[in-house]
């Protein structure tokens, strides 16, 4: 099979971007990605927008983004899989290129969340739980992951300190990432003294709603080789789902969709978990990163807490994870996140990550979860 490569990346500043509209945010990342790929926008055949439309007042977001970026009349479409919308866009761009229909596709993750108030967002996000039987009890998105955390703590003895350690690590790396919303180190003590959200979670167990955009430009093997000398190849794609309802989940201590997606991706790329030198995983809540260590096979089931205790997910450990700060410190503009993760892995595989660079990073992985596990996309990238 021919390959599909990433030839350009762009990433804007994440945070409460009260200075910019969603299409203006998209433009920042798009301009940077074009410059990085050294192509003109006329070279692009199609765009795919990863975004969750409910957060924007503009109906049918792709239209306004396409216009502002100057991409008319080429085709565009939007993918939505909640917080995994960005990775869904990358997957469909891969399909569009492999089908032969398009050669160069811009994947645009963009999201504006700060136009809504926090209780409105809690209400919207809580409805990613099943609305007929669950949301009527005021379930929230942190609440769902909190219930997974509680089950994991009960079954495996995972502690609140271990949860907080994930936040400490991600803030440590986020402090070195100029795009991150919070460029500030925190301590375990500070995390454990922060305000309660949904027990066992406190503020520092949760990522923040954010505005922001990221863009990757993907190309067919032929075009990629023609345009760029440092292509990063998307060699493994896995995607799976699990039940919408927490009431019908086979387990509360794992995301089955992540297990399935990662096994598919490893198989397709012809690698195993041991080969992954750097990973960006979906740490929307601290427990989510611990579940990811286990679901991706970086450690044994139930040993995720020990994995962070042993600093195996720091640079220098077995599998450095979220050394860009993760969702936790970058902020989580939900449709953008999967694309943002990809830009980081591309940077790492190119050797462009500066003081956050993982040595000899030749194979990297992204793990992007939609909802509380309803959707999961795992992508594996290779620099050779």
């Amino acid at each position, binding site marked *: 099979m021919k390959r599909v490569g990433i030839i350009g990346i762009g990433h804007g500043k994440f945070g409460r971007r009260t200075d910019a509209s969603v299409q203006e945010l998209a433009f920042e990342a798009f301009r940077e990605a074009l410059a990085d790929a050294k192509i003109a926008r006329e070279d692009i055949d199609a765009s795919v927008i990863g975004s969750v439309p409910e957060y924007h007042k503009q109906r049918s977001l792709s239209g306004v983004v396409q216009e502002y970026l100057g991409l008319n009349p080429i085709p565009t479409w939007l993918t939505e899989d909640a917080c995994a919308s960005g990775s869904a866009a990358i997957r469909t761009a891969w399909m569009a290129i492999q089908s032969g229909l398009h050669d160069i596709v811009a994947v645009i993750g963009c999201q504006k969340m700060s136009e809504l108030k926090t209780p409105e967002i809690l*209400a919207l*996000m809580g409805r990613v739980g099943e609305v007929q*039987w669950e949301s009527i*009890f005021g379930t929230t998105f942190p*609440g769902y992951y909190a219930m*997974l955390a509680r*089950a994991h703590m009960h079954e495996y003895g995972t502690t609140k300190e271990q949860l907080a350690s994930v936040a400490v690590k991600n803030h440590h790396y986020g402090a070195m990432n100029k795009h991150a919303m919070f460029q500030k180190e925190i301590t375990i003590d500070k995390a454990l003294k922060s305000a309660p*959200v949904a027990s066992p979670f406190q503020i520092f167990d949760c990522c923040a709603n954010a505005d922001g955009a990221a863009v990757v430009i993907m190309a067919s093997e032929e075009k990629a080789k023609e345009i760029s000398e440092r292509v990063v190849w998307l060699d493994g794609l896995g995607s799976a789902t699990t039940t919408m309802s927490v*009431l019908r989940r086979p387990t509360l201590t794992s995301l089955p969709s992540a297990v399935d997606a990662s096994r598919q991706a490893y198989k397709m790329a012809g690698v195993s978990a041991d080969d992954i030198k750097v990973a960006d995983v979906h740490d929307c809540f601290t427990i989510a990163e611990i579940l990811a260590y286990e679901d991706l096979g970086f450690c044994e089931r139930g040993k995720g807490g020990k994995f962070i205790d042993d600093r195996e997910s720091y640079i220098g450990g077995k599998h450095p994870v979220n050394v860009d700060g993760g969702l936790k410190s970058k902020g989580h503009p939900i449709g953008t996140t999967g694309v943002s993760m990809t830009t980081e892995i591309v940077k790492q595989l190119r050797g462009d990550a500066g003081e956050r660079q993982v040595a000899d990073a030749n194979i990297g992985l992204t793990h992007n979860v939609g909802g509380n596990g309803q959707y999961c996309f795992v992508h594996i990238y290779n620099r050779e």
Partner: protein
Amino acid sequence: MFEWFGKVNFTPHTKVSKFAEHLRDGRLMGSKCSKCGHLDFPPRADCAKCMHGEFEYVEWSGAGKLITYTRIDAAPIGFQDLDPYTVGVVDLKEGGRLVAWIGESIPESAIEIGMDLQVVPRVFDELPNIKLYYTLEVPGTTWIKAGEVG
């Protein structure tokens, strides 16, 4: 009448809307497939197993075991007057699960994964329209069922 179910209801229309009428009468109902007999909770109009489209309501005892819970301090719109509240998930004795608030008979300090609980049908008395829900209480908690004497 499914709009009766929940302080805030998001799905007024469903093929299992009589669930709410039964709940008002104090009965917690699951579904039983008319063809293969598969039992489900929450009830489903379409059998998850054999895909048959006819079912009957079967009463669940409401006995169950707590499998996880969370105390919600940051509530969404529609629930801010209630916070903090604790939401629990129970595995039901007759099969299936439900989410509900942990009720007043159980202090926060007594909540433990694995504990036995009883699902109790409830009506929001303070709301002008019929609004139904259920809570998780200590086993042995009683309530009135319509049509039952004494």
